[in-house]
């Protein structure tokens, strides 16, 4: 099992800036830190092998390790206040449980497990609604004795009168034809899951120091971890978090707390709105939380509004999904900010994570003059190199602020790295090996992630309740974004480690280059790109924000020259949290080659309010941005290219200097044995490829595992939508086009392309084409 894991507070920094590192020494082992520059991350003995350069740094040295845990699972914290320590009460909420049988789950609780104090509305270990009251020595439990059903809305209520000791528990299904989304509309017999229980409790709730939690319960009242700033900018003073447990899976809408046992009539009125209650009822309300109260153009806020005058406002922790359809969703509107009152639900998950919130272990101030590039803090236990004993925390050293130190920029697709973070598909998903065409090959870090679900998931994963993961934070160890890491989906590498194939080759060929990240482009926009003559993408820049797309297009129009060196780029709409760009969101819409589909009415991003999913749905299909669009995928073996007629034209032949007329191009490489593989792009005039693009080369002879993307399959018929042996859409197209002001785009259309660069000691025809293009693009003036 892994001995050490870590993360940093940022992905990139200029010289003079500091990066903080957070480390978990699983067994409290001491460890050694060494800053390294990452050169080549592929350990394959058939290639150049692993390469890194040790860098002098003040932070290098030995550290005392300590175990640091992640408190995963989302919930709402309402800070402790004496108003919340009540004797009589009504707790009520609409709930939509998605794992009613998982075990005990908190709905609305002011309860401390260890002290046995307070009160809470729970789902119990039998899947029944239950009330728990603790007086400090014993806990009374009153259960509905009826099972809650998955994906059904209920009004869930518990009342308690401390004078009469009377308890009333209501478990009432509230099913409409639309409100369950894909859940049942015909629920019969209702009695099977309905309850109205009258009982008594001689146990009175003892006051405690626990915060009020929605969607979980307190194990410890205080954890020493605090929220403030960033996505918690609305927190007036830092709030200390509890250590939560019993995380709820599913949706909650309109939770309320009153200090008397309300009548059923008053419960119903209060359930829909505090404002509709008469003054007598209002005077009993301690908190009436409307999750839709602060829906504006978006719902990126982490604040939860108490609509009562008591202002017991709360905050979401670990980024559950906001802008979710509520108990009263009619489907008249499918955009949450068009009808906020029908989007009063938050979907909580027991494996949500926004920030590991670990203590800082060391920091690294980037020295002036340190070359821009991809670096990492290498952590080793016992000085051992084996994967169980070491971790790398990668980061990017930027050129000095506002300057370029090279003519070439490698734009690290960090947003896409985050989308794939900690996917766990090798152990979770049956589809994994059907996609890969082999049994998933797991590394020790994959085994660790499998057992540590609090490390969170990727946007390719499903939460434990089956709901798609739409939010990814980099404020946690991302163990599949590491040098040396071999990815189950690829015959070898994927994303960060695969992109080192490119930077290693640049270095071997003597091309100077700077490195910046997607996140930097988000903050600086087009000015960042305009400092460079040439911009290189990574192998898989799949997830892009609106600002990225604007800048990328503008750069081309203003004379920038681009090498788009991958496939399936510019595909998903992916937005950063407006107050914390360490966190991104993608809603996977209704179409696309995708791991999950957004639920009905939940297509718009919480972070910017706009329609989420594929860029093509917003009029920005990739072929309009880079000339190519994702056409097919298959992860077993790769293939080769052959030249097309345009490659011999005077405008293009310089790209093929040194390449024979009938030469087989790229029938070698470290990614599937060929330059055309994993995911392929094609040109398509109907989808906006520039009409006078040059068609340079085309791949062929792909296996039948290579299939056409599903977003283009309207009828899944044999003979047309099959694999490489029957479908002309299964190919990588290599194109080149010119843009205004002497700009240009070169795109080989394959995710495996860069894996072939190092073959035969970097002397091969893929390498030669790349060298020709870059040298040609570096020249001033018009292109041939």
């Amino acid at each position, binding site marked *: 099992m892994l001995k050490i894991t870590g993360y940093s507070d940022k992905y990139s920094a200029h010289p003079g800036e500091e990066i903080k590192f957070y480390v978990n020494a699983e067994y409290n082992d001491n460890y050694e830190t060494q800053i390294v520059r990452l050169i080549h991350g592929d*350990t*394959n*003995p058939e290639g150049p092998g692993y390469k890194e350069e040790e860098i002098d740094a003040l932070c290098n040295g030995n550290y005392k390790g300590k175990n640091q845990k992640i408190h995963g699972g989302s919930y709402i914290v309402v800070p402790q206040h004496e108003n919340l320590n009540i004797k009589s009460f009504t707790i009520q909420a609409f709930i939509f449980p*998605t*794992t*009613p*049988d*998982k075990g005990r789950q908190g709905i609305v609780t002011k309860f401390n497990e260890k002290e046995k104090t307070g009160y809470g509305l729970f789902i119990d270990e*039998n*899947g029944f609604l239950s009330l728990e009251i603790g007086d400090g020595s014993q806990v009374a439990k009153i259960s509905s004795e009826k*099972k809650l059903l*998955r994906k059904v809305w209920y009004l869930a209520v518990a009342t308690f009168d401390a004078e009469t000791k009377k308890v009333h528990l209501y478990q009432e299904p509230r099913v409409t034809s639309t409100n369950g989304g894909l859940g049942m509309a015909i629920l019969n017999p209702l009695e099977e899951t309905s309850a109205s229980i009258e009982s008594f409790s001689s146990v009175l709730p003892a006051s405690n120091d626990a915060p009020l939690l929605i969607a979980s319960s307190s194990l410890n009242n205080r954890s020493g971890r605090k929220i403030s700033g960033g996505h918690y900018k609305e927190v007036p003073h830092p709030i200390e978090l509890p250590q939560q447990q019993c995380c709820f899976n599913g949706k909650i809408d309109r939770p309320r707390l009153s200090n008397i046992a309300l009548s059923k009539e008053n419960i119903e009125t209060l359930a829909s709105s505090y404002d509709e209650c008469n003054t007598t009822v209002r005077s009993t309300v301690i908190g009436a939380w409307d999750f839709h109260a602060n829906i504006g153009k978006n719902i990126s806020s982490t604040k939860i509004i108490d609509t009562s005058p008591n202002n017991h406002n709360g905050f979401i922790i670990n980024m559950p999904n906001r802008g979710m359809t509520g108990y009263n969703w009619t489907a008249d509107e499918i955009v949450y900010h068009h009808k906020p009152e029908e989007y009063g639900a938050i979907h909580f998950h027991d494996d949500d994570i926004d920030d590991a919130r670990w203590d800082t272990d060391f920091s690294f101030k980037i020295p002036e003059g340190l070359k821009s590039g991809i670096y990492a803090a290498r952590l080793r236990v016992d000085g051992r190199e*084996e*994967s169980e004993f070491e971790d790398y925390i990668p980061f990017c050293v930027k050129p000095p602020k506002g300057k370029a130190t090279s003519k070439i920029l490698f734009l690290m697709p960090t947003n896409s790295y985050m989308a794939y973070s900690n996917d*766990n598909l*090798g*152990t*979770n*998903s*049956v589809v994994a*090996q*059907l996609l890969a*065409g*082999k*049994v*998933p*090959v*797991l*590394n*020790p870090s994959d*085994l660790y992630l*499998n*057992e540590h*679900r609090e490390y969170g998931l990727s946007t390719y994963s499903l939460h*434990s*309740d*089956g709901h798609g993961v739409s939010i990814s934070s980099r404020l946690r160890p991302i163990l599949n974004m590491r040098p*040396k890491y*071999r990815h189950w989906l690829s*015959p070898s590498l994927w994303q960060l480690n695969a992109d080192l194939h490119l930077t290693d080759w640049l270095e071997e060929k003597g091309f100077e280059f700077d490195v910046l990240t997607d996140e930097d482009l988000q903050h600086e926009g087009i000015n960042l790109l305009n400092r460079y003559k040439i911009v290189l993408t990574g192998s898989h820049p799949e997830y892009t924000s609106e600002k990225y797309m604007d800048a990328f297009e503008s750069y081309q129009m203003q004379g920038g020259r681009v090498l788009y060196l991958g496939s399936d780029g510019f595909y998903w709409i992916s937005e950063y949290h407006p107050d914390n760009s360490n966190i991104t969101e993608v809603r996977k819409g209704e179409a696309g080659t995708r791991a999950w589909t957004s639920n009905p009415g939940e297509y718009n991003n919480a972070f910017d309010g706009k329609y989420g999913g594929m860029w093509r749905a917003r009029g920005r299909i990739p072929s309009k941005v880079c000339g190519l669009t994702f056409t097919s995928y298959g992860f*077993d*073996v*790769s*293939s*080769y290219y052959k030249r097309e007629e345009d490659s011999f034209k005077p405008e293009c032949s310089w790209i093929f200097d040194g390449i024979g007329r009938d030469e*087989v191009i790229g*029938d*070698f490489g470290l990614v*599937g*044995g*060929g330059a055309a*593989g994993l995911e392929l792009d094609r040109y398509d005039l109907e989808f906006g490829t520039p009409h006078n693009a040059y068609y340079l080369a085309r791949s*062929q*002879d*792909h*296996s*039948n*595992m290579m299939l056409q993307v599903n977003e283009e399959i309207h009828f899944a018929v044999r003979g047309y939508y099959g694999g*490489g042996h029957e479908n002309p859409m299964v190919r990588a197209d290599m194109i080149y086009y010119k843009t205004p002001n002497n700009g240009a785009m070169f795109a080989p259309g394959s995710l495996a392309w860069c894996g072939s660069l190092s073959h035969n000691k970097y002397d091969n025809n893929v390498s030669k084409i790349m060298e020709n293009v870059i040298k040609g693009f570096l020249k001033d003036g018009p292109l041939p």
Partner: protein
Amino acid sequence: MSDYSYKYPSNVQLNKGHKHTDDFITKKYILPMLRDPHKLQELIDEHRANPVGKAANRNHGVIQHSQDLQTVLDKLRRASKEGGFVSVCLKLHEDYRIGITTGVRGEPVHILEDSYSSEEACEHAIFLKRIKRLLNEYSGD
């Protein structure tokens, strides 16, 4: 699909439709091949020689599995993660083991002792185990 099943499930909750249809497909298309010793040996030989496939190059076209082997592999690969197979790489390019998943998130992968020197060798060992298991599963039919 949720990780948490209902405690008193109905047959639709148990997804019997999928199970029974898969049984039918297995009995009609898969088992006859595996129960024919000659055919079985042919499939095993083919898989041993080429567990994953080989990329096309200037000397030969793409090498992929025969239709029969692919049909068997599709069946084996769509199996549940309960008792499912993975490869575990304990030392890069040197030590690969067979791992068994429980299908429950968070539960450890059980790693078997036998070591294989390559991904392909481990892949083939898993193939053999899966065929044996499938034949045992349907031995009463």
